[in-house]
């Protein structure tokens, strides 16, 4: 019998996964020493299993919150929406909707950007976003978000208290960042609370698949405005009602980000704060340190 075959039998015997006949045959083939080892292995395995079973339990607060959510709002399925959209897309294709096929890359699957359209509440929006992306929300500290962007090849400065917004009389707050749910392109999302309604800035590098998805979404009206900064594209997503009422005002949400070069220039105008910034001129600015994704995971979760 081959060694690997023997080992499989050994393990299956250990785990009680052999049929009675197989177990008896295997048992008969064991030497005294092998039998002694097997008993000890079973004991060791049982001990490890016991250790892995103890000590950890679901936090009460987490379960209570989930239970409350399940009891209060039997969640509506998203399928009808997607099915409707898919049917519409199919009809468009059948009718010779060549528009959708102008470029296979621009015509992103409906699902990709549909996930970016904010739903009704901020909590629901963030939860849906994170659930669909299987991502974790990066907290809204400026440096943390900038590092997260940098780890995904987006070198933009974050301003989590834009003066323009404060002066406009609207309340806007950066809630955090996460990866977008776009399997075919890398998009980072900044989640924003705008007057109590959810909004998002989708960020991607120009000319990459993420940028094309954002542009495609703009054509379909899912992204209300687009702005280019340095080598990046930013797409703004807000609730339709807000977009209609405050088309100009919402553009100020772009002020949550700005090109790195602008920040350096601004900082050079503020000598009092020079101690906290790079003393190098913009051109000589040191390339931002690139963090490995694995490290980012560790530092953010």
């Amino acid at each position, binding site marked *: 019998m081959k060694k690997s075959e023997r*080992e499989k039998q050994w393990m299956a015997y250990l785990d009680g996964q052999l049929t009675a006949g197989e177990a008896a045959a295997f048992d008969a083939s064991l030497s005294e020493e092998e039998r002694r080892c097997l008993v000890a292995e079973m004991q060791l395995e049982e001990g490890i299993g016991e250790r892995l079973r103890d000590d950890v339990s679901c936090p009460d607060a987490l379960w209570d919150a989930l239970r409350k959510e399940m009891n209060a709002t039997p969640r509506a399925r998203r399928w009808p929406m997607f099915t409707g959209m898919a049917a519409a897309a199919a009809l468009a294709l059948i009718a010779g909707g060549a528009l959708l096929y102008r470029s296979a890359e621009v015509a992103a699957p409906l699902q990709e950007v549909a996930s970016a359209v904010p739903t009704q509440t901020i909590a629901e929006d963030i939860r849906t976003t994170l659930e669909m992306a299987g991502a974790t929300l990066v907290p809204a500290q400026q440096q943390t978000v900038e590092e997260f962007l940098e780890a995904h090849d987006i070198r933009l400065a974050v301003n989590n208290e834009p003066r323009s917004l404060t002066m406009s009389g609207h309340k806007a707050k950066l809630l955090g960042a996460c990866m977008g749910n776009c399997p075919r392109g890398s998009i980072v999302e900044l989640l924003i609370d705008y007057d109590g309604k959810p909004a998002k800035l989708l960020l991607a590098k120009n000319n990459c698949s993420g940028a094309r998805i954002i542009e495609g979404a703009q054509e379909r009206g899912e992204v209300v405005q687009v702005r280019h900064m340095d080598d990046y594209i930013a797409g703004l997503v807000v609730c339709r009602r807000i977009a209609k009422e405050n088309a100009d005002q919402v553009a100020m949400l772009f002020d949550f980000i700005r090109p790195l070069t602008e920040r350096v220039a601004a900082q050079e105008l503020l000598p009092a704060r020079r101690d906290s910034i790079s003393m190098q001129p913009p051109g000589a600015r040191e390339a931002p340190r690139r963090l490995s994704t694995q490290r980012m995971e560790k530092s953010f979760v």
Partner: protein
Amino acid sequence: MDDFIEQLEKHKDEFYRYIYRTAWNAQKADDIFQSSVLAAWENRHKFTPGTNFRAWMYRIITNKCYVANRVTSRTPKPLEDVRETDFAELNEAPEYGDVLNDPDRFLEACGDEVFQAMTELSEAQRMCLLLRSAEKFSYKEIADIMNIPLGTVMTHLSRGRAKLRRELMAYAQSQGIVRPSAPRNITRLEDVRQAEQGGLHG
């Protein structure tokens, strides 16, 4: 509806524990647990009453764990992690005899090192081991939950167990619980201690 929540409540601790031991981070575990429970709730109409609720939930949870760890799983492993040891190879190591001579004492001496050693396993090995050793699923059920062939489950289990034991043994050796290279004629811990007291190794 209440039945479904009751079922969830009944098993919530073991679900959470599996997620926690897979993700190894409380914050991440909370996120995955929440996302899994809500996904299950949303898809509860797909569960057939009378079938195995635990296995159904573990399928959802395992998928969520995969998704949550997808970034790290793409990260190339360090070279030393690439070489895998099989269970049989381990049994041939003479110092492993010390471990098998008194498994309970060995585990007691290792303490929480078991959890540390678990983090050294690959995600798939860890999941297989948790599903088998802690949650007592059959190979077939694990294959269904993880959506992998049964043979792959056995390979993950074999390698995972071997690696776990090697890590524990390395720790035990560093702590002097197991001799670095125990002579073949001294296999029992008791014998080793007696030999030490008698000055044979001193």
